[in-house]
């Protein structure tokens, strides 16, 4: 006789910081329940000391990224039924990998954004408001390359998924390099030499082994692997016709 779906969900949540342990909770099972729903329920009804982050809860901001059953995901966009192979499996929720744990499910993302900065993942232009706006053809190959990677919201899922980040503490990581690629292809940017110098080395694109975890896990279906391959093809030279 097949067993009915249990009415409670077994959840295992990381408590502590870099040192700590998993704590078990039983949460009422509901239809259309996301992992974020589960975390919110625990904090509001079972243990008010649980620390975690979320904001939009509709898959736009990336704040709720955590490690769910071993894989980095946005918890607001992850249905519990999608991660549990059997109804009475345990749902394991942990903070993102490769970042210091502040408390429980919240990580310190300073290092992630520092590497973004180190990859020159920020725009520098030369026009002022007094000049006309730059004209960029959206159909040009360079702009298409930018558009393919520009939707990144810095959620950290790719960084948490990349084993090279784990193995090489200097590795800038897929998000920073993806952003650098979009800027390499930005015809208005004026720091191409510095950017290419920052990413054409072992801290940058040369350490990518095409593991592909970033591309597999990106919740926005971006392909940092593609961007990093593009950086590799630059061969240490700024793009043709670069402003700087």
């Amino acid at each position, binding site marked *: 006789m097949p067993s009915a779906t249990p009415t409670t969900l077994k959840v295992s949540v990381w408590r502590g910081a*870099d040192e700590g342990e998993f704590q078990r909770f039983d949460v009422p099972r509901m239809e259309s329940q996301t992992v974020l729903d589960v975390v919110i329920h625990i904090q509001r009804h079972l243990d008010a000391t649980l620390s975690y982050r979320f904001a939009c809860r509709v898959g736009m901001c990336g704040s709720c990224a955590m*490690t769910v*059953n*071993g*894989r*980095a995901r946005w918890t607001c966009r992850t249905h519990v039924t999608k991660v549990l192979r059997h109804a009475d499996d345990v749902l394991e929720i*942990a*903070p*993102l*990998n*490769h*970042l*210091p*744990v*502040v408390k429980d499910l919240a*990580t*310190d993302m*300073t*290092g992630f954004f520092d590497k973004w900065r180190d990859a020159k993942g920020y725009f520098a232009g030369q026009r002022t408001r007094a000049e006309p706006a730059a004209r960029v053809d959206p159909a040009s190959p360079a702009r298409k390359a930018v558009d393919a990677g520009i939707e990144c919201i810095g959620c950290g899922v790719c960084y*948490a*998924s990349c*084993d090279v*980040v*784990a*193995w*090489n*503490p200097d590795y800038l990581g897929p998000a920073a390099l993806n952003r650098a690629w979009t800027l390499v292809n930005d015809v208005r940017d004026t720091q191409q030499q510095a950017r290419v110098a920052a990413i054409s080395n072992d801290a940058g694109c040369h350490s990518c*082994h*095409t*593991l*592909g*975890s970033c*591309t*597999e896990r990106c919740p926005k279906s971006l*392909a940092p*692997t*593609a961007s990093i*391959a*593009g950086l*590799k*093809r630059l061969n240490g030279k700024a793009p043709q016709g670069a402003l700087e």
Partner: protein
Amino acid sequence: MSELDVSHANGAAAAGRRKTPGRRADARARNHPAWWAFLVHRLSGLALAVFLPMHFWALGTALHGAAAFDSFLAVTRQPAFVFAEWGLVTLLAAHLIGGVRLLLIEYRPWSGLRKDLIAATAGGALVIGLAFALSLTL
């Protein structure tokens, strides 16, 4: 200074021996085709790197003339040796096809993680290994 500032200062000071902070992925995160392709590529490369010096040394015994070379070749007819040889041919084929996949990803326009070539790596290695085994035994 907040606790975070202290830990950053400590991190910067220990730059030479630094490790990536935080938790690590386990097999659940690595269970996808491109990751297996990486692992096969790295491990086959390692095995070949270990084998290559022995291969060069063995062939170099021919410097002592055909008789010395022949007595070495007698060793190569041992079953364990033949099995190892087959294994290395298979690994070489896998490393070759997997490597071609990487060169295509890095030098050609993006067309995904090329999972068809991951399949071709497995299939091609199998076929070449079989061809070698058949050639040896038939």
